[in-house]
């Protein structure tokens, strides 16, 4: 067994299972690593099935030593997620190549199981979960093959058998999932390079930065309201607030002062909701305008941004409370100055026009209405693909291109306000969202990203003005889909214009998103907090590790007990005659008299008579009764056999 070489069948299983676990990684591995893995596996298959021989020892050592510099050269480091994966995949290929004993084969299988885990460092979707479950079944079948399992020879039957084994392990996996103490954050920190490609709002805004997001269907966050959701026009999700500009790019304050919420007391008009935020690698949380509470672990800045201490790199769930009818009232001298500042010499035409209009208008309100009317009446277009602006962005937009997305309108409007002496700032965030009636929650996607303006008006405080609404009212009231119809759904079907198909596609997308939301909430979002809630419901204090350990052990013992009982009961309804004879054999086995697998009752009894004459009489009687009952032609009474076996005490 120990020195037995793995058969070609076992090698085939190993290679197939490893190929299955590596395949989804191929897009993440450098090309050379994928090719190297394939070649190493093919080489091993060639050894198993063809006439190729295993590489010499020096060549193997050389290949292993070559892997390290290769990883370093292609990844620039040996540490971190992608370098680690490359290293693991290449070395797993090497181990596969040099598999010469069952022990090596076991090591390769364990590497395979570990490779299954690495996928979840990249993706935690339902699809990858199901795929990896299947891969685990294939690896279990491979283990059976290596072990020389006599049962289930055909591959399909072996896979089925492995599937049953995995299924039987499920209850315990589930218990461990529910009860094993959760750590704050992942078990091991995700390496730093894991967040480079996260999409979301940035800290700055320049022409094109929001419209780029609007092409993304990625989910920004999901919201579940305690009551009915507010109307779409009220759904302004407040994010970063931008104050300063260099004429082209707008940015926020590096570290604004912290604002303490005045205690308004509990108010019946508060909107309460739970947000599940996708990781965006920034510090801010999103809340409906205007936030009236600070979720745990966050602070409120003076310009009413919710900020967390650390960047959000994990899906985050938080409760929030907002007051939709309230506006910020605070302004300091410094912020008033900031809200009027414009870069020296920028946007001369716009500023001149602004000054002229301000002079001609009676009061600030009339001036604001005039600017908005200008947007409404002049041929301004709301478009996802505005022309590139080369020179002075605001002047060019106002007087020549007149095509823009919300950031263009917000920026231009702010310049007009500041030029006329009205303090103004830009608020970015999201507007609207799609209500999912299946899951009864709101999905806010990246393409709902938006920018609007807040003006400081004496007596009213910071008033929200959305210049985009002047150009495209449907954007605010009906959402992005209505404002800019896009070819929805699979374009290859050519059904984009068909209303029924659109509706079907929309329904499908909502069901799929509801499923994903459930997965996020209950599987991926099952962290410390949820565990605490669950444990509290069964009266276990999650802070007490001893209690958790006890609960874990008790429940696992219980589930194993149930499984054992079930297996035992499945075994029991066999022939009662056979059961009695097995008991007779069991009793003899304690005396080290063992019945052979293919030893018939007559032969066994004769052997007992020969070797242990003291049991001969009883054994003969039991054997005779058993033979008559099991093989005889006449039905005889089982009770005598039962009695004989019962009183038999060797």
């Amino acid at each position, binding site marked *: 067994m120990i020195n037995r070489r793995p058969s070609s069948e076992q090698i085939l299983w190993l290679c197939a299972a490893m190929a299955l676990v590596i395949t989804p990684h191929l897009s993440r591995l450098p090309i050379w690593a994928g090719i190297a893995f394939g070649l190493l596996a093919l080489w091993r298959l060639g050894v198993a099935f063809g006439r190729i021989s295993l590489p010499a020892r020096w060549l193997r050592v050389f290949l292993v030593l070559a892997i390290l510099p290769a990883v370093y050269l292609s990844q620039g480091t040996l540490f971190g997620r992608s370098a680690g994966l490359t290293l693991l995949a290449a070395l797993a290929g090497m181990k596969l190549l040099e598999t010469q004993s069952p022990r090596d084969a076991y090591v390769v299988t364990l590497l395979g199981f570990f490779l299954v885990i690495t996928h979840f460092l990249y993706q935690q979707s339902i699809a990858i979960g199901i795929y990896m479950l299947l891969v685990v079944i294939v690896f279990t079948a491979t283990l059976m093959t290596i072990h020389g399992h006599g049962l289930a*020879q055909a591959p399909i039957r072996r896979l089925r058998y492995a599937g049953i084994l995995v299924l039987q392990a499920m209850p315990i996996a589930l218990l461990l999932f529910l009860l094993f103490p959760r750590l704050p954050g992942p078990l091991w920190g995700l390496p730093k390079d894991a967040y480079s490609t996260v999409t979301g709002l940035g800290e700055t805004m320049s022409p094109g930065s929001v419209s780029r997001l609007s092409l993304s269907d990625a989910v920004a966050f999901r919201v579940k309201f305690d009551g009915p959701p507010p109307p779409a026009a009220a759904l302004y999700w407040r994010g970063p607030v931008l104050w300063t500009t260099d004429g082209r790019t707008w940015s926020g304050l590096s570290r604004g002062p912290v604002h303490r919420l005045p205690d308004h007391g509990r108010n019946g008009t508060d909107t309460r909701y739970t947000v599940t935020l996708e990781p965006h690698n920034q510090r801010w949380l999103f809340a409906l305008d205007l936030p009236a509470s600070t979720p745990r672990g966050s602070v409120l800045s003076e310009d009413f941004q919710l900020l967390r201490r650390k960047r959000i790199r994990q899906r985050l769930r938080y409760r929030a409370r907002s007051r939709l009818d309230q506006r910020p009232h605070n302004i300091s001298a410094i912020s008033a100055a900031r809200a009027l500042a414009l870069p020296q010499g920028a946007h001369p035409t716009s500023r001149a026009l602004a000054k002229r209009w301000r002079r001609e208008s009676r009061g600030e309100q009339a001036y604001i209405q005039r600017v908005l009317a200008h947007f409404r009446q002049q041929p301004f277009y709301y478009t996802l693909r505005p022309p590139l602006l080369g020179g002075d962005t605001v002047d060019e937009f106002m007087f020549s291109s007149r095509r823009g997305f919300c950031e263009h309108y917000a920026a231009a409007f702010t310049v007009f306000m500041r030029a006329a002496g009205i303090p103004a700032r830009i608020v970015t965030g999201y507007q609207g969202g799609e209500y999912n009636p299946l899951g009864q929650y709101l999905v806010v996607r990246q393409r709902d990203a938006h920018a609007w303006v807040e003006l400081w008006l004496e007596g009213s405080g910071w008033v929200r003005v959305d210049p985009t609404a002047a150009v495209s009212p449907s954007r605010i009231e009906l959402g992005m889909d209505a404002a800019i119809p896009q070819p929805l759904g699979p374009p290859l079907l050519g059904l984009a214009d068909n209303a029924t198909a659109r509706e079907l596609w929309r329904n499908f997308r909502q069901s799929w998103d509801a499923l994903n939301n459930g997965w996020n909430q209950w599987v991926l979002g099952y962290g410390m907090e949820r565990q605490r809630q669950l444990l509290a419901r069964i009266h276990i204090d999650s802070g007490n590790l001893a209690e958790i350990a006890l609960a874990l052990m008790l429940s696992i013992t219980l589930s194993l007990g149930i499984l054992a009982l079930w297996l035992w009961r499945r075994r029991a309804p066999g*022939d009662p005659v*056979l059961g009695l004879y097995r008991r007779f054999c069991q009793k003899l086995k304690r005396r080290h008299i063992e019945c052979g*697998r*293919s*030893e*018939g*009752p*007559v*032969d066994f*009894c*004769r052997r007992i*008579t020969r070797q242990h*004459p003291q049991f*001969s*009489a009883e*054994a*003969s009687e039991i*054997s*005779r009764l058993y*033979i*008559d009952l*099991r*093989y*005889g*032609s006449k039905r005889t009474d089982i009770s005598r056999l039962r009695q004989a076996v019962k009183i038999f005490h060797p």
Partner: protein
Amino acid sequence: MPIGLTITTEFPEIRETLDNVVRQIGAVVLGKEHSTRLSLACLLARGHLLIEDIPGVGKTTLAHTLAHALGLGFQRIQFTSDLLPADILGVSVYDRDVAAFRFHPGPIFSELVLADEVNRATPKAQSALLEAMEEAQVTHEGETRPLPEAFFVIATQNPSHQIGTFPLPESQLDRFLMRVELGYPGAAAERTLLQGCDRRELISTLQPLLDVAQLLRLQHQVREIHASEALLDYLQALLDYSRNAPEFHSGLSPRAGLALLHSAQAWALMAGRAHLLPEDLQAILPAVTGHRLHWASGAGDPGTKTSSHLLEQVAIP
């Protein structure tokens, strides 16, 4: 003295009669009781027997004695390379008195036919014999003539590696219910053989213990032996293993399954029992499967018999 196992025997008188037959044959063919019993079981199960061994170990004597002890008409055909089918089946000769062809039955028209050294004849002659065995009748020039009701062929053959042999193809080997080997006699038997008189002379002194009618009745009784569900489970487990295990070239056919069952039934009747035991199957299995089950090339240990491997691997359910 320990009390041994007494198994219910429904037919003690049959057991005694058949034991006597075995004993009588044992007086001539020395030290070959198991082979004798197998041969008798084969005959009771209405099967044909192939005895394979080197020349001079008593193949012909066994066949001859069996015929005598059972009171069967006996014919011997010595197979040679120039044997023609007509030499076995018979020939039509023109009869001048009646001005017509008259059929002269060949040696096959006998109750027990000994086909000696069957693998020395050409395939053509071999298949004439084997066809008659299968059909239990002879068709000659369009006329079908039935063979005797009790018809039993014992063929002997030399190991196939000997010079001048035409080995029987597998399909024809399958027509034989059992294949037994005799082997060298034990030391004691050999001594008796060396001291005693000519075996052939002894045969003529034997008294038949059965007649044809009794034999036919016994053959009928064999099929009535009860096979319980448990025993059929075991038989099917054996067949299943032979078909699914990679170490065998090809599994046992359904015909082989029936052969196993009938042979085991005969074996049980010889023990006077009306029901089958797993031991009955185990006793006859090597003789029934020896010529049917072969190692897949490169698998298994060629030194081990396939039948003992099969018995070891399959647990009695």
